[in-house]
Every structure is written in C-alpha cells, then in structure tokens.
C-alpha cells in the first residue's frame, strides 16, 4: 500500500491501482452522504479532481494521485456512500486507475511515512 498527502491509499495490482481514502480521512470526514465518481475511461493527470465526497458537514475532493486512465469505479458507493466510513480500506474504495508509469508509485509515502504524516 502507498499513501498520498491527501490521505488516499493506493493498492497496486500490476499497472491497475485501486484508490480509496484512509481510515484517518474517513474519520475526519464524518458521515458520508453522497459520492460523485468519475466516468470510466477518463484520462487524468496527478492533482486533477476526480471524485467528490459529500459528508453532512462539507464537500471534499479526491484528486488523481498519478497520471493515468480511470478503468473502473465502485458503483456500490452510489447506493451506499456510508461504505466509505464503514470500510474505507476495503469495500469503500473509489476507483481503479491504469497508470502510465509504475515507477511513479515509488514517490508516494509508505505506511510508516503516512503514519508519521498524520501523527
């Protein structure tokens, strides 16, 4: 698992990367009431806004962690946005992205580094 400063986690399966938000971020957000997901086949660049999480309190964006193409989204979140809070590292994943450059993953934080980041 790799982590971004924006509290996303990335799990690699070859060149397909599953992206979600960390338990820390989910806890900060509180009750998630709506999730807007990107279209499949959208080509994104690092830092692009690709999804929106609406909690009772506020809207937050999810940014593309790396350059690539969205290849799958978690449609279960549309019907049950609470999955983000209930199981952020599992059933609450957001999208899968096929990345251009696997080496770019090396620039992201390890779990230990992320834990230091939020400490």
């Amino acid at each position, binding site marked *: 698992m790799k982590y971004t400063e924006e509290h996303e986690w990335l799990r690699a399966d070859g060149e397909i990367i599953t992206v979600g938000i960390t338990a820390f971020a989910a806890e900060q957000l*509180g*009750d998630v*009431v*709506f999730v807007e997901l990107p279209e499949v086949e959208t080509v994104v660049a690092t830092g692009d806004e690709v999804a929106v999480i*609406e909690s*009772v*309190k506020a809207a937050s964006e999810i940014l593309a962690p790396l350059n690539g193409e969205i290849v799958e989204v978690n449609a279960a979140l549309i019907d049950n*946005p609470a999955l983000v809070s209930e199981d952020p590292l599992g059933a609450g994943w957001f999208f899968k992205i096929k990345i251009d450059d696997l080496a770019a993953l090396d620039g992201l934080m390890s779990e230990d580094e992320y834990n230091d980041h939020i400490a």
Partner: protein
Amino acid sequence: MADLNTLRLLPLDALHQECGAKMCPFAGYRMPINFPAGVMKEHLHTRSHAGLFDVSHMGQVLLQPKGDMATVALAFEALMPVDVLALQPGRQRYGLLTNAAGGILDDLMFANRGDHYYVVVNAACKETDIAHLTAHLSDVADVIPVTDRALLALQGPEAEAVLEAIVPGTAAMRFMDVAIFGDLWISRSGYTGEDGYEISLPEDLADAFARKLLADPRVLPIGLGARDSLRLEAGMCLYGHDIDTTTSPVEAGLTWAIQKSRRTGGARAGGFPGAARILHELEHGPARLRVGLLPEGRAPLREGVPLVEDGAVIGQITSGGFSPSGERPIAMGYVPTPHAAEGTPLTAELRGRAAPATVTALPFQPNRYKR
C-alpha cells in the same frame, strides 16, 4: 486553519475535550464541531431526545434603563422594524438590527425582564452590535456586555423533562417565556425548531451544570455541525450566510418578525433604519425572496452554488447540506420573486453540471415549540 491555540476558549472547553469533541475555530473561539457520535447521530438524537449545545460564544447584553423601560423600548425600536414596546415582562422576541439601506446588521433575541432588557446576539457580530447599541441607546440606557456568563442550549422533545428535574418550574414556561431561577437566566427558545431552553449562567457554574445535564441518559453533547443542520431543517437564517447587510428582512422571509404596529398604518410605523425600503417591499413585494429548495438526487447543493436560467445566474444557494431527518439534501437560497412559488423548478450549477431543484415551503421539518 487558524491556530487552535490562539483562539478564545469556551468555559466548557475542558468538558468538550473530555467528551472527545473534534474542535475547530469559529468566530474566534475554539468550538466543538462534533462529538464522537458524529453529526448525523447528534442531529437525530436532538430531534428524538435532547441535545446540549454550548453557545457561550454568542453575545449577551443588558440594556439597563436610565429612566423608564418605555423610553428604552422606543429607542430600541429606532434600530429595529420590531415592536419592542408591546413586549410584556417575562417574554422574549426575535429582532433584527437594520441599516439605512434596509439590510440586516444582525438578528438577535431580546427579552423584557421587567426592569431591563436582555439581548442575545451573534458571536461574529457582538463587538459591532455592542458599539451600535451603545452609540444609539446610551442616552437612555446603560449598554452592559455580559462577559462572565456561559450560555447553554438544551434542545429536543425530552428537554422539558430533563430540565424540570434539575430546575423545577421550567416545565411551566411557554415558548419565548424568560425567567430567572437563582443564578440561571432561562428562556424557552432555541434555534433547532425543537422545544427547548437557553440557559445563561455564571461561567464558574457552567461546567458542573453541564455535567449534571449530561448525566441524564437522555442528553448528548452536540457540536456546531449538528446545530447547523438542525437550524437548516428548521428553515432558520444563519447570519452572514442567509442574511447579511445586503438582504432585507422582507427578502429574507422574516416579515413575521415585523409586527403590525411598525408597518405602514401601524401605531408606530417606520422610524427604523431602512424603513423606506422595508415598508415599500412589505407593500409591493421584494425583487427576490429566500426560498427552500429540494435538490433532486443525493448531491447536496451548498452555499455559493449558483442558480441559473438559460445560462444566466438568477440566484444563489445561501445554506445547504444534507438533512439527517429527511435523509436527503436540502437548501435555501435567493431567487427572483417570480421564481419563488412553491413547486417552481429551478436549476443549480453544481461543479459545472445542471442540478435540478424544486422550490419548497419552509421549514423542512415542522417546528415543535411548546406554545
């Protein structure tokens, strides 16, 4: 984010931390945004049981007459399109300070406590309000900021039973009654649409009193997040968002707060700042109106989202979010009066997309005051 350590602390700060509050800066204070239960549960608990809110950041002011109460009432009426003179001892009323352009400087609660008035104003406005009141009322009253008292709100259908067990006599109060019980200044009011009370008490007693309330299993501590979603469901204005110096009381749908005596033809018509505009709008209707909106689908429309027609912006959302009671997004905003009728379809522009919404009657949840 502002440094939490430079913010002013509420009298209950230690208790909030002990209760596991997530703190955030608000109006210069470090305030609990939510407790471990979370906004949704806090909101629903308040609607079905009782919630305790720390609103000590708000301004409390006494108007102590130099002569008689009627003179102060008339001077206060020169600042608000509201009937102060007819407010009976032991009663409270909602008021609005207006400016010369007919905009709203602040909204407030004022109570007649027999030999003086007690006023509660918004936290963000309190310094300017006190200066404004002092500038205009000091000939007839001492304007005394209350700086050593906390303010708590106990809201919800079980608030009455909870408070009566601790402060006997409070159950007999009606909506908008005020009374003094020893050190406690209590009003039967609040800003959630629920039955409930606001309790002003000396700062050094606040912690023990709040703990006594929280010891009752019917009471949960509630943060600012749920306070906001509760008042939104109740269709109430949040100063600086739904009302400000550019919105008139008529546009804001607050005409119920302007008693007949202050309107054209009334016993003391006009004579308040912005009377020309406000009385004109009362008679002929304003150009725009605050309305309730039900967005289609699940995406909340929040403050700042534009309302559009044929590519042109015609209005704006001023408050919006998710309604825990209604389990759907709700919003309020301003639209041109011809678009303000219940059932009118509107289009919001959300993140570059057209998001349909329908004008609906306010409040979103019926209020349950004990009149």
